């Protein structure tokens, strides 16, 4: 406790960095996943899904979902170390973390988003088409809002796992709450390590709660 009181501004600064590194990849990864997933889910002109109807569309869906899942099997540390080579950034640049974590979010969110789009009732889409919606407007006004509940479940998992993964960046010297682990270990300060762990957990709990609240508001129509 003493250690925390003495280093409050430092912990605060690390928390802010951790927060940024958690949120930005989740937002970026989700924005990338949605179009990929939507293209993987074939739809006929009237809005009904083609999955299960044609071999081609089943293959497309499988290829996208499995490729995404494969990305997740790359070890995170390897990815962090690899990033500077690919991006041409310096080894301690936070950009490495942003890009690497975005890849993980994509790996998780593509699957969720595919499930989310498939969860949208074909009858609703068909009826929207029959009302006179054109496909693009139908996507924004009907399909996407109705995919939110399932997508949100995946998003919460992605966010929480991302918060824990940010710490790994500390190993290659990128500042976050994970820095408290590496620093505490080197200086043999258990209090610093505990602050790091508790801080990460608290951050995860707060963000998850916040996301759940936003989600509840976005899906208030589901409560009967």
């Amino acid at each position, binding site marked *: 406790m003493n250690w925390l009181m003495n280093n409050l501004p430092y912990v605060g600064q690390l928390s802010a960095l951790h927060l940024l590194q958690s949120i930005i990849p989740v937002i970026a990864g989700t924005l990338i996943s949605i179009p990929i997933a939507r293209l993987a889910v074939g739809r006929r002109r009237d809005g009904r899904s083609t999955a299960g109807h044609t071999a081609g569309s089943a293959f497309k869906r499988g290829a996208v979902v499995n490729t995404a899942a494969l990305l997740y099997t790359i070890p995170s540390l390897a990815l962090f170390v690899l990033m500077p080579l690919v991006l041409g950034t310096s080894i301690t640049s936070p950009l490495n973390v942003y890009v690497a974590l975005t890849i993980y979010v994509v790996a998780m969110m593509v699957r969720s988003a595919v499930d989310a789009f498939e969860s949208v009732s074909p009858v*609703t889409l068909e*009826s929207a088409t*029959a*009302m*006179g919606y*054109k496909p693009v407007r139908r996507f924004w006004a009907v399909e996407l809002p*109705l995919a939110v509940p399932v997508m949100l479940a995946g998003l919460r998992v992605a966010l929480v796992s991302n918060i824990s993964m940010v710490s790994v960046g500390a190993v290659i010297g990128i500042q976050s709450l994970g820095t408290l682990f590496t620093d505490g270990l080197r200086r043999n300060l258990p209090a610093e390590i505990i602050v790091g762990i508790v801080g990460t957990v608290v951050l995860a709990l707060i963000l998850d709660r916040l996301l759940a609240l936003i989600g509840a508001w976005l899906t208030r129509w*589901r*409560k009967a």
Partner: protein
Amino acid sequence: MKDTDVLDSPNAIEFKSVTKKYGDVVAVDNLNLSIPRGKITVFVGPSGCGKTTSLRMINRMVEHTSGEILVNGEPNTAQEPHKLRRSMGYVLQQAGLMPHRTIVDNIATVPRLNGTSAKSARTEALQLMETVGLDTSLAKRYPAQLSGGQAQRVGVARALASNSSILLMDEPFSAVDPVVRQDLQKELLRLQSELQRTIIFVTHDIDEAVLLGDYVAVFAVGGRLAQFGTPEEILREPADDFVASFVGRDRGMRRLTFAGASDVKIHPLTSQHTPWQQWELKVEDGKPAGWIIDGRTIPGGSLFVEGGTLRDALDSVLSSPSGVGVAVDRNGKVLGLLKSEDVLAATEAERHRRYGVNA
């Protein structure tokens, strides 16, 4: 034909040699059909007869393979599909409401798509809720909070929005329970008597077709139109064996739907103590409440409501535990009793009248 139409053609929709094929499978085979303006036309037939496909070809939810479909005299391919669709109402079996929009916003969908301001679209939607018999206090609710019958009313209100002169209804009442269905059917007939839209209604239920249709198109398996005519014509003179068998064994009963029961004598209630019955009608607050025999009370049969059809009269007699039908007025108060011999005599008289003979 009502005099309400502004266009020259008496037909709202015309199918001209329309065929729909999926690969080699013919779903609709060379359909020629004129749908009169301002009337309810029912497409009826067994599953796989192409009735729904024919309906969906009108607003191009399904594109026809060959032939031509005229909507108000114009080929339906002359405008873009979304514009065509916004010009007609569409009601689906499961209502197909947008679960994430409130009732009032669901009803306002098409006016909003057509660029009406949110405020006036909502005002119109609230009026439509009243038109279809929905309490406007439901306006801010979401579809998940409605019963099946209410959801279906919202579906109808949504289809009526934007003053679409054509309404397409695809088995709209088949997913609700029989009591609610009857309510919705009555409501549709009441609405139609006020609004006089052109309604195309798909069902597999011949009773529903006979009840609702000004005209009935009977489809046979393989997408062939087997017969088109008024319900009475179809029940009286089925065009072929298929129609005869589809119209069914009960068609004699069904035809009694078209005969009034004004000839059937309603016996005053005091006559229930005559020798023909030891049954006694139980009456509470002037309304029938079952039959009493040997000190037991047995629930009564269907009631004959004043002004009903001969079919209602016959059913009230057949379903009554005492064998005597109960006639009530529109408020449900007992008017008197119907005897089976009177009802049968009325069916005889009706038959004589229909064929213009005396024996």
